[in-house]
């Protein structure tokens, strides 16, 4: 037995200082990857929305619309603001993800260091109010962003299905498939899986009930709640998959529009 120099003064609740921990594992790796992933997506998506160009591929009969520009309010409603119209849409998915329970965990850890990781000290001298005061009290509006994001998702489904129809020589639409069609379909499936696992949706569809067996309607909602719970269990994974799929879908269409790559028509 011997004394060591690893003295530990603070042994009960209270600030310990940023990074103070006895953990030996790479606790910093997760928040760092989240930070890099979200910054990379934020930079790319802002740039892609800012350009206002190369978002719609119409060559060789294809009709691929970037998810950042859907719905195409310029084409559908004639709305043409002096800036890229993508910004008229993107606040909805941005709000949906920013208030999402999973993303909240991610960015509270990676950006606000609150906490940076479990059992790891935080910066001293901050007043903590959690989600009881502005701005984070607005997280309680997550369900409204879910409603709006669902409308956007319906447009994305339309776009994905539309991508399977190509304009033929006579101007008629005919069923077909290109690599872009598949990418757009996979993207909207990923986005749907993310939305289906939404915690607010899980609550509204049935989680708010106390009795699942008290009526026929309650039993139906119970089954729906069980279904949503399956997606909810992997909400984190779908959050990342759908985030990257939406960025990669835009990138594919953009590169095709720029002529850097060419869409391969399968049939």
């Amino acid at each position, binding site marked *: 037995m011997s004394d060591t120099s690893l003295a530990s003064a603070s042994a009960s609740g209270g600030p310990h200082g940023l990074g103070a921990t006895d953990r030996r594992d790479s606790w910093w790796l997760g928040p760092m990857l989240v930070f890099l992933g979200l910054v990379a997506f934020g930079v790319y998506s802002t740039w892609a929305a800012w350009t206002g160009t190369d978002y719609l591929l119409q060559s060789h009969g294809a009709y691929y619309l970037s998810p950042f520009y859907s719905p195409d309010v310029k084409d559908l409603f004639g709305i043409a603001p002096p800036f890229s119209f993508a910004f008229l849409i993107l606040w909805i998915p941005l709000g949906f993800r920013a208030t999402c329970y999973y993303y909240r965990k991610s960015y509270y850890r990676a950006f606000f260091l609150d906490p940076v990781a479990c059992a790891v000290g935080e910066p001293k001298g901050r007043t903590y*109010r959690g989600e009881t005061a502005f701005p984070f009290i607005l997280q309680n509006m997550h369900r409204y962003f879910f409603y709006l994001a669902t409308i956007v998702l319906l447009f994305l489904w339309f776009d994905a299905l539309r991508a399977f129809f190509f304009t033929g020589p006579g101007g008629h639409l005919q069923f077909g498939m290109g690599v872009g069609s598949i990418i757009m379909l996979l993207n909207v499936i990923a986005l749907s899986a993310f939305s289906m696992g939404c915690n607010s949706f899980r609550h509204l569809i049935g989680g708010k009930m106390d009795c699942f067996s008290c009526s026929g309607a309650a039993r139906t909602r119970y089954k729906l709640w069980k279904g949503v719970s399956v997606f909810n269990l992997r909400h984190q994974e779908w959050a990342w998959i759908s985030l990257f799929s939406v960025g990669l879908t835009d990138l594919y269409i953009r590169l095709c529009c720029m002529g850097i790559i060419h869409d391969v028509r399968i049939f």
Partner: protein
Amino acid sequence: MSKREFKVWRGDAAGGKFVSYPVDVEEGMVVLDAIHQIQRQQAPDLACRWNCKAAKCGSCSAEVNGKPRLMCKTRLDSLPDGEPVTVHPMRSFPIMRDLVTDVAWNYTVNRKIPPFTPKKDTQWLMQQEDVDRVQEFRKCIECFLCQNVCHVVREHDKKDHFAGPRFFVRIASLEMHPLDSLDRIPLLKKEAGLGLCNITKCCTEVCPEEIHITDNAIIPMKERVVDRYYDPVQIVIRKLTGKDKKD
């Protein structure tokens, strides 16, 4: 048989330090075995709370290599070789002595929660689908690792305004109970301080019973608070229909 170095925190409320002990390691040993060996052979005055040694009593909570864990459920072969194993008492509660902390605050919080109160003329019959959801919460062994790791308690020391994850689980088990008649949503928002939780899921990560504390208890309770206090449409509907109680 090999030897490993253990650095065990020794001290009391006035302060303390890590003390090194060599431990003979056998296959299958857990950290609590090592602590018992230290007590038996080197430091009979080492204070440690334990009981079942089967991860069911929730007594031997501590921080092993900085991670909140049950000592009886932490196998030595799960810890990195070639470096000392540190054992520290839970950091969120006052130290009594060595590895023993004073967790009385938790019981004080618990007493503030109105217990199960059945509806009048209750038919004592429940369907399995109604039982399943609240049964998960019954697995809690009250080890208080979730309370210990929660940064609202640990870093921000909000014990006077915050119930903590263990008690959000308990309130959820009562609120979701189909035969219960009480409304604890105001308690959740006000006295229990649910809004202070920023759902960073550390409680779920450390739960030895693998209860989905955040997804199945805290978030559903947050959503019920939203129904009651923040969702303008629901507030208007409730005002119009005069329905202001649980579903």
